[in-house]
């Protein structure tokens, strides 16, 4: 690898297709007692849009900042475009584009002035006009940063990452805090960069964003990569294409049922449901907790798995059209009253939930 790199440098050639755009090996980083990154290996191929997905605190930002040369790892190596940060820092900074979380540009500078400043740092790159065009900030080019909307500020941040015409682009939570329309706008921008063949690494805690934009996704939790693959592959691991969610009993009484006790019950294989206080068929017997026979549900063809959270039962289901009538029948048979019922296609969120037992945005 080392010899390879030297050869490349000697001839000044760009990365060839076999070299990984980013190669991460055995990466560790701790802040005090917190192991932010705890042993990560990743390869990102040239031209790929790669997503790091995970909840806050999963280690996404630490990982991406080590890649960007902003944070030194405790152990492990990072190679970008066949070069590492130790000997090739200046060269690498010329080759990559970076958009950080929470950068605030000065309010009193204009879009054009900011881009002209950033353009001056790069030996080669696109013109300020082109950068303004790519970020679709034409109407705002003479406007001061203080007068831009959140989405426009984020597009400016993107434009500062693009002025050096980078081969490799790092986007750290590019759409966090934006309204849906501004997010769509930014997604379009990323799509266009993908089409132009850039290698993009982005972090996000929005599963829809990762599904929409990324060719491959690494799901991170507590400093580890817990799943890696294309969004399709990952979703397939849930076991079914659809998720059925239902609750029994009345909604008002569902509240006090805590996740902790639900999980404990889940562990025992049987589950209590909240009392059906105002049910028409209510009797003294109904005052006591009713129980769902999970085995009966899991026996239904097409039902792959079951979990419960805050009295909301989730089944992953592969044959939705045949399974749903059977689920209704099974619940009816057990004398249970449905208070909620819905289905959705399985998402990366379901993958995360299944692997960790937590939601992406739980803190």
């Amino acid at each position: 690898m080392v010899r390879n790199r030297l050869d490349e440098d000697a001839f000044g050639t760009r990365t060839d297709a076999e070299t990984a755009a980013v190669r991460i090996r055995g990466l560790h980083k701790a802040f005090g007692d917190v192991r932010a990154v705890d042993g990560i290996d990743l390869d990102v191929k040239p031209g790929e849009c790669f997503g790091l997905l995970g909840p806050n605190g999963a280690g996404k930002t630490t990982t991406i900042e080590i890649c960007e040369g902003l944070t030194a790892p405790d152990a492990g190596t990072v190679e970008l475009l066949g070069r590492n940060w130790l000997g090739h820092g200046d060269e690498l900074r010329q080759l990559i584009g970076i958009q950080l979380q929470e950068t605030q540009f000065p309010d009193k500078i204009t879009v054009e002035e900011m881009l002209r400043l950033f353009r001056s740092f790069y030996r080669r790159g696109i013109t300020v006009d082109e950068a303004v065009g790519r970020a679709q900030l034409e109407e705002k080019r003479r406007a001061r940063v203080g007068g831009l909307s959140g989405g426009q500020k984020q597009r400016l941040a993107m434009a500062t990452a693009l002025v050096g015409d980078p081969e490799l682009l790092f986007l750290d939570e590019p759409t966090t805090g934006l309204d849906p329309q501004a997010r769509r706008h930014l997604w379009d921008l990323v799509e266009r960069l993908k089409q132009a063949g850039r290698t993009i690494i982005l972090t996000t805690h929005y599963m829809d964003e990762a599904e929409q934009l990324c060719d491959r996704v690494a799901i991170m939790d507590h400093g580890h990569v817990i799943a890696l693959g294309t969004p399709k592959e990952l979703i397939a691991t849930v076991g079914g294409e659809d998720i059925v969610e239902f609750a029994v009993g009345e909604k008002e009484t569902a509240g006090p049922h805590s996740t902790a006790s639900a999980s404990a019950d889940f562990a025992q294989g049987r589950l209590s449901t909240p009392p059906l206080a105002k049910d028409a068929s209510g009797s003294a017997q109904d005052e006591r907790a009713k129980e769902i026979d999970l085995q009966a549900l899991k026996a239904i063809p097409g039902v792959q798995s079951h979990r419960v959270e805050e009295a909301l039962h989730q089944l992953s289901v592969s044959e939705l059209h045949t399974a749903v009538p059977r689920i209704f029948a099974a619940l009816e048979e057990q004398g249970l009253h449905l208070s909620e019922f819905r289905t959705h296609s399985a998402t990366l969120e379901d993958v995360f939930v299944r692997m960790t037992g937590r939601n992406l945005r739980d803190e």
Partner: protein
Amino acid sequence: MNRLVLSSLYQLTVTRLKLTLREPEAIFWIFVFPILLAVGLGIAFRNRPADVLPVGATTPQLVEALAADKGLHATQMDEAAGARALATGNILLLAVADGNAVEYRYDETNPDARTARIIADRAIQIAAGRRDPVAAGNRLVHETGSRYIDFVVPGLLGMNLMGSAMWGLGFAIVDARAKKLLKRMVASPMPRWQYLASYLLSRLVMLAIEVVVLLGFARVVFGVPFRGSLVELALICVLASLTFSALGLLVASRARTIEAVSGLMNVVMMPMWIMSGVFFSPSRFPAILQPFIQALPLTAAINAVRGNMLQGTELGHMMTPLAILLAWFVVPFAVAVKVFRWR
């Protein structure tokens, strides 16, 4: 566009200047405040013509004798009215005729009243025919350079050089750090030294404007003298500004919040505001403090500016203050670059 305009150091410096000039508060503190201060002090400590002292007398003859002296304004009044006028401060002295003699009533603890007593007595004795044995004449001298305004303008200049360099750098750097802009900048290929250098360069541009505005005003309005070489004065200002910029850089090198850096700035600048001789000579402080006071960069800067403007001293004869300034530039700058927190 040519190479200069495309260079990152130029772009950083221009951006810095634009950001400074787009802050209305900065414009006030840098340009307007020192002028207001100079005007205020100039008015308060102006050299007034000798006052005409109001006095009273009980007879027309005494009034006539007193009025003959230009330093007195005499009014005739009886003893009762005179006592009231004395009590209310309308007159400083009442001359009461007592036969052939005269009695002066005044408050001897009031210096003006004592002066009135001397002038009044002289006027009355001369009117009565006294001839002085020694002939005496007066020539009045008003020397520029010895007035308070001449003393205080170099002090204000030094204070302004210190304040604008330290506030300007400190706030801008800590603000950029708090907003994660510093982090974004060092993630780009920008050379770090250029970022720090752009602050010093933009400071020099601002300095040229500030110094010309303040000194030009002092020259035109108060006639403050420039006895030394203007080129040397400019060199002193540049060195002083670099020194205070380096101090500002050091103070801002670690702080994460504006509050923290404000506190540090005040700790650093307060002793110099008081002791470095902006408004009064530092020789008023006890001898034991003098080595400390003389080693302060603001003392050195003000001494050098006063030496140039008021005494016309050449740089070659002011090596001590210049060496002190240089040391305060080199050491804080080196430390600041070493410990600077980029994120």
